């Protein structure tokens, strides 16, 4: 009887031990020498490591595991070819022996710079930010992204500030379109081709002046992915007043950025008093304050005559009855690494009307009189503007920049004033042609010395005619 009981207990125990399975083996090289310190990894699948061990001096390895159906054994050692064998554990197996012979394999790595994922890199005056760490699916434009980067703030107007300082410009792959008018870009450009953002401190417009010019300017540069596909993106908005006055506003941006060429089309048609040229004024006359060796920026033919009306105290767009049409094309080409061509053209057609009716009734003592004034002013404006920039990097220390601008404007102003029944007709016709050529040569001798040579030719004609009736 006693014997029987014992047997049963033993049986149970042995069942328990049963579920533990030993996996072991000897690892040797081709010459039958046991290998010490080989990594042996027991895996469920390619990612899930169950257990790992190292072989001992005799080349032995051993795992004690619970039951699993299918497993992989992976053997790896420096200088040997990685081996992997799959093992299948039967339910009743206690021990599995897998011996293996590893073959030598030379393994060489040239110096690999790892720099494990740093989101923000600081190099001298450049801060580089990898974009994808900040991206979420909700982000649509560059502005959304910039808001999330510590140190950069974007206010409700779209002004981008780094610390407390507004950025000088927002570039795409080092190419600049808008200078201070970067908001068009930051509010519209999508993010999916973007790789990183660079904050360029102590920025100089002329790259050779970097470090020489005393500058506290900051610029942002959006670096596109190396394999960035060209992609059209843009924004169009149309508003139309259906009620009475046929007022409308159509605005569109269309941009295409590739690694080599970049295009931007802007158009604006409106009759709501919006001054569309304001958007592109900085493109025509870039205002660069304190730019070294810049000459002739203040040269201008002043017009002597001007027909304008005194405007009542309303917002300017409420008294500006216009019909403006504006189209602009910007392009940047980089045919070779050294040459960059920027082209800009725009055409603006505008018609503004202004009416004023005045009735003054004056009562002084017993005498009184009434003045009636009926004033009409009609402006017609046509401007065509072309600008071409060539930038040629002769060598690392020499650059040649040439800028050609051509502007052709014609303005017609007609005013009609009927004062107490007497009519005065004024008629002014203006024509303006401007040819502006500027060549800048920069040669950097050393870290402190740079030679800048600027030549500029400006030919501006502004004839005015005036007739009074």
């Amino acid at each position, binding site marked *: 009887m006693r014997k029987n009981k014992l047997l049963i207990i033993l049986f149970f125990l042995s069942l328990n031990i049963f579920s533990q399975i030993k996996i072991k083996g000897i690892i040797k*090289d*081709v*010459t039958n020498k046991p290998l*010490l*310190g*080989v*990594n*042996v*990894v027991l895996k469920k699948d390619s*990612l*899930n*490591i169950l257990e*790992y061990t*190292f072989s001992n001096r005799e080349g032995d390895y051993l795992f004690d595991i619970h039951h699993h159906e299918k497993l992989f054994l*992976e053997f*790896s*050692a*420096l*200088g040997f070819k*990685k081996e992997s064998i799959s093992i299948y554990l039967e339910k009743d197996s206690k021990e599995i022996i897998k011996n293996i012979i590893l073959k*030598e394999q*030379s*393994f*060489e*790595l*040239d*110096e*690999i*710079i*790892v*720099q*494990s*994922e740093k989101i923000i890199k600081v190099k001298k005056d450049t801060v580089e930010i990898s974009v994808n760490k900040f991206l979420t699916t909700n982000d649509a434009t560059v502005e959304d992204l910039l808001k999330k980067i510590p140190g950069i703030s974007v206010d409700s107007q779209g002004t981008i500030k780094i610390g407390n300082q507004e950025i000088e410009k927002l570039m795409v792959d080092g190419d600049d379109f808008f200078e201070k008018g970067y908001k068009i870009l930051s509010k519209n450009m999508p993010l999916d081709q973007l790789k990183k953002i660079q904050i360029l401190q102590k920025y100089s417009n002329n790259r050779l002046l970097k470090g020489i010019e005393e500058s506290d300017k900051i610029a942002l540069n959006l670096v596109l992915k190396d394999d960035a596909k060209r992609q059209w993106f843009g924004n169009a908005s149309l508003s139309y007043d259906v009620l009475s006055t046929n007022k409308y506003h159509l605005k569109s941006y269309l941009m295409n950025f590739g690694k080599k060429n970049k295009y931007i089309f802007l158009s604006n048609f409106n009759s709501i008093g919006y001054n569309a040229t304001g958007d592109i004024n900085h493109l025509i006359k870039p205002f660069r304050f304190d730019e070294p060796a810049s000459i002739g920026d203040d040269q201008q033919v002043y017009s002597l005559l001007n027909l304008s009306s005194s405007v009542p105290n309303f917002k300017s767009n409420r008294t500006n009855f216009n019909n403006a049409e504006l189209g602009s094309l910007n392009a940047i080409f980089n045919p070779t690494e050294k040459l960059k061509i920027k082209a800009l053209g725009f055409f603006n057609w505008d018609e503004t009307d202004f009416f004023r009716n005045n009735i003054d009734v004056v009562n002084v003592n017993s005498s009184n009189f009434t003045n009636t004034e009926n004033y009409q002013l009609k402006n017609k404006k046509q401007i065509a503007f072309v600008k071409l920039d060539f930038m040629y990097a002769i060598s690392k220390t020499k650059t040649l920049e040439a800028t050609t601008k051509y502007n052709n404007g014609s303005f017609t102003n007609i005013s009609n004033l009927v004062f107490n029944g007497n009519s005065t007709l004024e008629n002014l016709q203006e024509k303006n042609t401007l040819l502006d050529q500027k060549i800048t040569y920069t040669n950097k001798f050393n870290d402190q010395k740079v030679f800048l040579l600027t030549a500029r030719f400006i030919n501006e004609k502004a004839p005015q005619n005036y007739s009074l009736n």
Partner: protein
Amino acid sequence: MKVMKKKMLIIFLFTFLNINSQEICGTIEYEVKGYKTIYFKMIFNDNFSFNTEKEVKLSDNEKETHKSEGSVTNKIIEGRRNLTPIFLYNDKQNFYFNEEFIDGEIAVVKEDKITWKWKILSETKKIGNFTCQKAQTTFRGSAFTAWFTNEIPVPFGPWKAKDLPGLILELFDSNEIMHITATKVTLKSKEKCVFPINEKTLKKAVSIQSYLNTQKKKDKEYFARLNSKLPKGSKPFKLAEDCEDCPKEIKLENFNEKK
């Protein structure tokens, strides 16, 4: 008989060649961000790793003062007094490192035989070109996370970290007292690693326990010397571990901790 001899010779030559061609030597550079950022360079083959500081600079003492209600805590960080670079040497059997005492003396310490028991997670990420897998463990009271790559199958890593089935490229503790990242990796085959380690210095190595005892003794001596210079009537400085109300410092290594 003569024929036999010839055969033997040929076989011998072959094995010799085989051993030679197996030689691979790697270097990895680490950036160790802690109280200060220091740079380490580690050379390793399949049997050893030798990790040492790249540039050694002397530094002055630094003083930090924290004022809170009613009490002022002065924290003095002792500057570096000597130019002996820190090294950590792992030959798979033993682990040696050197440490500077408060008076500038250097001790070579033989680490206790500890295997780091890692829990390997299925998370992966790319560090450089290497696919790395995440692993976690606790060591002397701190929780560590490591990213290692099986593409370089050696059980070595920065600082004292080891025993993973691949080279550790990133290591940090949960309190971010230390964050180590690899910056450069090179592997060369058919090149013997030269470990600039003197067998004599390793023989002189003391155990962790005796190192800790000496450290405590030297710290006490230092405080005694500090206190002897204090003006009369002022309260003596106390070692943080000897005072009850001192703020507990979070340490990377707590030697009392069993795990």
